[in-house]
C-alpha cells in the first residue's frame, strides 16, 4: 500500500534472524506483542497547566526496538522522558497514571529514582560527553556505583566500547578528552557510557539526528545489534530509520498515541488515516 517503504522492510526482514525465542503475549489491536518490558496506563503529563500527553496506554516489548514517530511537538520526547523520570527535574511538571517497569509502578513514592535510571538508560539527541577522558566517560557509571578496581573498570570500558562499535577507533586514545572525538564518535561514546551502567532498557531521543550519513548508518547498525540484549525505545524523525531499525512503531499526534503496531504493518498498512498521512508526508 505504501510502496516507498516496502523495499526497506523487505531488506530488513531478509537480514533479520527469525524471531528470537520470545513468547507471544497480549497485543495491541490484532497484532501480537512480545512480553512487555514497560507498560503505561492512562498516562497523562502536564507542563504546569499545559497537558502534553493524553491517556497514553501502550506496552514496550522486551528485547526489541520500538520506534516513536510523529510530528514535532507531539510529545515523543516527553513520553520518552516519563519512562526514566527525567521529567522530574522539570519545574512544575506533573504525571498522572501509571508507568510499569516489569510490573512495578516507577512513580510509586518508594521507588528510588537513582536505581531506576541505572536500569533505564538514556541517550540524548545532542551528544553530551563529559569534559573528561574517553575512559572516564565510560567508567563514570560504574564509578558512581562504587567500583574503584582499575582492572575491572578497564574490562567494563573495553567491553562497552566494543558493544558501541567504537573500540577500534579509540582503543589507543582512551586518555584523550572525549571532546576531541568526532560528533559520530561522541554519540557512540554516549551509548557506550549508557551501556556501562548495565541497563535493561535504553531510551534514545533522536540519537542520530545530528550525525552525517555514515555515522548514522553505524549508529543504526549498532541499535539493530543491541536489540538482542536490550529493550530499546527510539524517537526518530527519519521514517526510513524507523522502518530499518525497529520491530514496533508507535505514532504520536498532538500528545495522543494514535497507533502502535508492528513496524511492517505501520509502514505498509497503517490502520489510521492520520498515520498514513504522516508517513506519506502529507503533513508534519
Amino acid at each position, binding site marked *: 500500500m505504501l510502496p516507498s517503504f516496502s523495499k526497506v522492510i523487505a531488506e530488513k526482514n531478509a537480514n533479520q534472524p527469525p524471531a528470537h525465542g520470545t513468547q507471544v503475549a497480549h497485543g495491541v489491536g490484532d497484532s501480537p506483542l512480545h512480553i512487555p518490558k514497560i507498560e503505561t496506563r492512562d498516562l497523562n503529563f502536564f507542563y504546569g497547566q499545559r497537558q502534553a500527553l493524553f491517556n497514553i496506554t501502550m506496552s514496550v516489548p522486551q528485547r526489541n526496538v520500538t520506534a516513536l514517530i510523529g510530528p514535532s511537538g507531539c510529545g515523543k520526547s516527553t513520553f520518552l522522558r516519563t519512562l526514566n523520570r*527525567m521529567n522530574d527535574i522539570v519545574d512544575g511538571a506533573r504525571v498522572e497514571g501509571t508507568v510499569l517497569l516489569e510490573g512495578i509502578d516507577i512513580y510509586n513514592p518508594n521507588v528510588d529514582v537513582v536505581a531506576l*535510571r541505572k536500569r533505564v*538508560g*538514556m541517550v540524548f539527541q545532542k551528544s553530551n560527553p563529559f*569534559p573528561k577522558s574517553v575512559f572516564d566517560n565510560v567508567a*563514570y557509571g560504574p564509578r558512581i556505583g562504587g567500583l574503584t578496581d582499575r582492572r575491572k573498570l578497564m574490562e567494563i570500558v573495553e567491553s562497552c566500547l566494543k558493544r558501541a562499535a567504537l573500540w577500534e577507533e579509540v582503543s589507543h586514545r582512551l586518555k584523550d578528552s572525549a571532546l576531541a572525538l568526532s560528533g559520530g564518535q561522541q554519540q557512540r561514546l*554516549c551509548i557506550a*557510557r*549508557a551501556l556501562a551502567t548495565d541497563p535493561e532498557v535504553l531510551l534514545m531521543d533522536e540519537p542520530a539526528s545530528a550525525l552525517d550519513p555514515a555515522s548514522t548508518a553505524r549508529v543504526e547498525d549498532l541499535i539493530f545489534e543491541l536489540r538482542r540484549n536490550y529493550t530499546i525505545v527510539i524517537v526518530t524523525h527519519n521514517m526510513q530509520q524507523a522502518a530499518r531499525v525497529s520491530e514496533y512503531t508507535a505514532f504520536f499526534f498532538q500528545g495522543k498515541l494514535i497507533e502502535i503496531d508492528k513496524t511492517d504493518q505501520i509502514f505498509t498498512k497503517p490502520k489510521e488515516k492520520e498515520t498514513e498521512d504522516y508517513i506519506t508526508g502529507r503533513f508534519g
Partner: protein
Amino acid sequence: MSSEFSPSTSRPSLYRRWTLSTLKEQSIRVLLFACALVSVATTIGIIGILVVETGLFFSQVSVGAFFGDTVWAPQSSDEPRFGIWPLACGTFLVAGVAGLIGLPMGLLAALYLSEYASERSRSILKPILEVLAGIPSIVFGYFGLVFVTPYVLQPIFMNGLGIDVGPFNVLSAGIVVGIMIIPTISSLSEDVLRSVPQGLREAGLALGSTKFDVSVRIILPAALSGIIAAFLLALSRAIGETMAVTIAAGSQPDLTLNVFRPVETMTAYIVLISLGEAAEGSIEKRSLYVVAMSLFLITLAMNIVARFILRRYRNEYQ
C-alpha cells in the same frame, strides 16, 4: 498617473543633509564620548601620578631596601625604614583568612543556588546576598571590632584556649572580609556553574547519579577554571578592601604569621597617611604612593589572570 510615482522622484537622496536632528545626533555622540574620555583620562592620570611619585620615592629609597628590609617604619624620626614585607604580609594574611572563610562559603552558596535551589528559594536568597554585597565595608569593620573580636574570638581563644587575642587582630579582619566577599564569590561562581551545559546534568542524572554526584563529579570539575577565576577576582577585592581591615586589623606593621596579632595592611597604611599630616613631597607622603602602586599592581595582575581564565572558560562551552 505613472509619472507621479516615478522612482526617480520618490527615492530619498543618498547624500546626508544637515538638519536639526542630525545635528542633535552628532552632539549627543560627542557628549557621550566626552564622558567616556573623562573616566579614561582619570585612570591614566592616577596611574601617571602613581608612576611619577613611585619614581621619586625610589630616588630616595633604594629598590633593594624596599624589597630587602623587613621593617616598615616610615615615620620613625631618627631612621625611617621602608621594607614592604610587613605590609605585604599583613595584606596577604588578612586576604588568606578571608579566602579560607569566603571561598568555601561562597562556593557552597553558589552550588546550592545553581544546582539545588528551586526557582522560589533562588528568588528569595539571591536578593539577600546582593544586600550583603551592598553593605558598606566600614560597617563590616566595626562589626569585626565590636562584635567578632570581643564576643566570638576572645571567648573562644582567650578564655577557652588561653591564647592572647588583642582588640585588633588579623583573624577578625579576615573573618569580616571573608563574609564580605561571599556575595562576590557566590554570584561569580553561580554564573560559572550555570553556564555548564544542561546536557551534562541530564547525562549525569540519566546514568543514575544523585544530585550530589552530579555536582561534585561533573559540574565542579567542568567549571573548575571559571571557579578559580571567581576566587581570584574575589581575593583581589579582599586585598584591596580598605575600611574593614583598617578598623579590625589595626595599624601595627609587624612581620608576623600570627593571626591573633594586629598587623597593618597596605590599604590601612594608605588610609593612615592620607588622614595624617605628612607634608606633600615628604618621603612619608611618597611612601603612600609606592604602597598604592604595589597594591594596584597586585590587584591588576590578579584581575587580568582571572579575566583571562574566565574568557577561556566561556569559550569552552560556546
